[in-house]
């Protein structure tokens, strides 16, 4: 699926930004499209992805989990084993190399869970770029380990105190920085959101996940999977997994949104399930807003999902029916976190635990010859404090 010239997937996407950013987006679009065709660039990216980030990541057959749930065969795409512990590095290495290609020396980024922040800090250290990361103060508190990691890597973490003090506000502040330092700085956006070309570019950099998965499942099962399941915040890990299977209509896509304390409570982060169409952070897509168009506050136990918007390609998938979207609450995600830890010895990121939690419900209903692949997009070390707090344990 490619967006049209103006960056629209169907009716979703576009480029709704202050004029000051327009020429930089045009420049980025040109640089990206030339890099995409440039064998030298692709070779360099491939080198870093394999020798530095540790790709390909395994597609692991979760035998014990499969047995425990007693239904479909469950595979985990182990993005948690990437360098820095999440899929985010696939994109930051790509955009980092692109930054150098454009002759810019400084990158800025937003982060919620801190995973994209750490992955950006790592890419910046590796490629010799100056790096500043915007992070809401609420997230700084709940992901303190990642904050310190970013600092150790030589990046500056700038606390954002405005609004809900989470990912949305970090993006606002990063955009304000970019408007100011547009000539010297690349905004290394971490998800499939934002103005064109970000949604398609980030998806492309993440599509390595699905490409590998396809080869691996063909090798291991000699067939394509029945279900691909991934959590959806902005949408980068899910689209990264789904993209290579887009034309295989028999492969079902399931995007799991964070239902927080339950969709009915209003304290959730499920724009596709409970939102309406609007414009935020540069693109037209589903989002959580009130009747006047003011953006609503969100909630999720997983900071990486705690965002009122979603990438335009997901909105398109919803509209066209290509993907199905389902809710998973904080509680269900926590339970899934513990289940995977104790059956397979893997602690997933709370974000990825949402995808897992849906599979806990889905797998037993399916026969044993069905195949489900979950994108285990990150590891849970960063979340032990949140989990401890939720379980009432003092560390």
């Amino acid at each position, binding site marked *: 699926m490619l967006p049209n010239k103006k960056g629209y997937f169907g009716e979703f996407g576009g480029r709704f930004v202050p004029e*000051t950013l327009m020429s930089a987006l045009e420049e980025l679009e040109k640089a990206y499209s030339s890099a995409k065709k440039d064998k030298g660039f692709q070779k360099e990216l491939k080198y870093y992805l394999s020798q530095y980030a540790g790709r390909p990541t395994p597609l692991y057959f979760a035998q014990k989990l499969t047995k425990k749930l007693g239904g479909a065969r469950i595979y985990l795409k182990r993005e948690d084993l990437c360098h820095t512990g999440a899929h985010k590095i696939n994109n930051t290495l790509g955009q980092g190399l692109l930054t150098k290609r454009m002759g810019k020396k400084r990158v800025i980024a937003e982060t919620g869970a801190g995973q994209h922040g750490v992955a950006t800090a790592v890419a910046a250290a590796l490629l010799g770029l100056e790096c500043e990361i915007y992070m809401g103060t609420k997230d700084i508190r709940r992901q303190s380990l990642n904050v310190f990691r970013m600092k150790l890597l030589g990046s500056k973490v700038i606390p954002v105190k405005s609004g809900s003090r989470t990912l949305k506000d970090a993006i*606002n502040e990063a955009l304000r920085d970019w*408007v100011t330092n547009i000539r010297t700085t690349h905004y290394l956006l971490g998800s499939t959101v934002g103005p064109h070309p970000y949604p398609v570019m980030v998806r492309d950099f993440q599509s390595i996940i699905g490409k590998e998965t396809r080869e691996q499942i063909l090798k291991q099962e000699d067939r394509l999977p029945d279900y691909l399941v991934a959590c959806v915040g902005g949408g980068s890990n899910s689209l990264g997994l789904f993209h290579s299977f887009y034309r295989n209509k028999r492969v079902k896509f399931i995007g799991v949104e964070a239902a927080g304390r339950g969709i009915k409570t209003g304290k959730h982060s499920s724009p596709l399930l409970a939102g309406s169409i609007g414009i935020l952070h540069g693109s037209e897509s589903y989002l959580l807003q009130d009747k006047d*168009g003011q*953006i609503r506050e969100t909630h999720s136990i997983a900071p990486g999902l705690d965002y009122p918007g979603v990438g335009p390609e997901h909105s398109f998938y919803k509209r066209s029916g290509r993907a199905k979207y389902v809710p998973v609450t904080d509680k269900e995600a926590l339970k899934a976190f513990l289940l995977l830890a104790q059956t397979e010895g893997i602690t997933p990121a709370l974000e990825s635990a949402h995808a897992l939690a849906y599979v806990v419900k889905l797998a037993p209903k399916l026969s044993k010859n069905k195949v489900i692949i979950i994108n285990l997009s990150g590891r849970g070390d960063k979340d032990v404090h949140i989990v401890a707090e939720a379980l009432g344990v003092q560390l």
Partner: protein
Amino acid sequence: MNRIETKFKELKKKKKTALIPFITAGDPDLKTTKALVLEMEKRGADIIELGIPFSDPIADGPTIQEADIRSLKHRTSLKDALDLVKELRKKTEVPLVLMTYYNLLYKYGIKRFVAQAKRSGVDGVIAADLPVEEASELKRYARKSNLNTIFLASPTSPSQRLKLIAKESRGFIYYVSLTGVTGAREELAKDLIFSLRRLKRLTNKPIAVGFGISKPEHIRKIRRYADGAVVGSAIVSVVEKNLKSKDLVKKVGDFVQRLAQSCY
């Protein structure tokens, strides 16, 4: 011709620069906004911009962000602003421009917005995150109703874009003086005069300069090269400093008057 176009014609004859103050509607409340508009006109404002507060104002610096927060505390909406303009039209013919972010217009419905804006007596609209490429729906309805669509031009816009922006703007072109967000600055951007001359060569439409313009001497420096000056954060700061004062409206008026004196 609508009120904005007439105003620029009239000012051109007088060789006066248009003073365009900005305030956020509903900061601190709608009653004060109404009083401020009337006072600012009396003190020499030629066109007045009313900001409609948005929860995520990415083009604004801290001063206007805070004003938006104050206004949103009592949920000021686009509809409130349209009603306010209707009220104001009983008392004044000063050209009024609404400035906001596109989601508020989109959510309201573009067709409905344009119809009601026109009925209320709004003369122009600016959406800070709406570049010309995305504005076809707004333009389509606004053209029919003679509601001016004002687009932003910036220091990073290449000539080709400047031409497009000039072509699509009605009423005036809003030139963003610097690369950055709104907010009072000590000095003007170094390349501002050069950029204004470049833009002037590309268009006959009036050019108003905003972002960072905050004192009389700024206006004096640009007035040979631009047709208007937008002052936002500096005025909103006066509001902010006098929130508890009975003299809020007068204090803002005094400041506007000082600015107006630099426009001749």
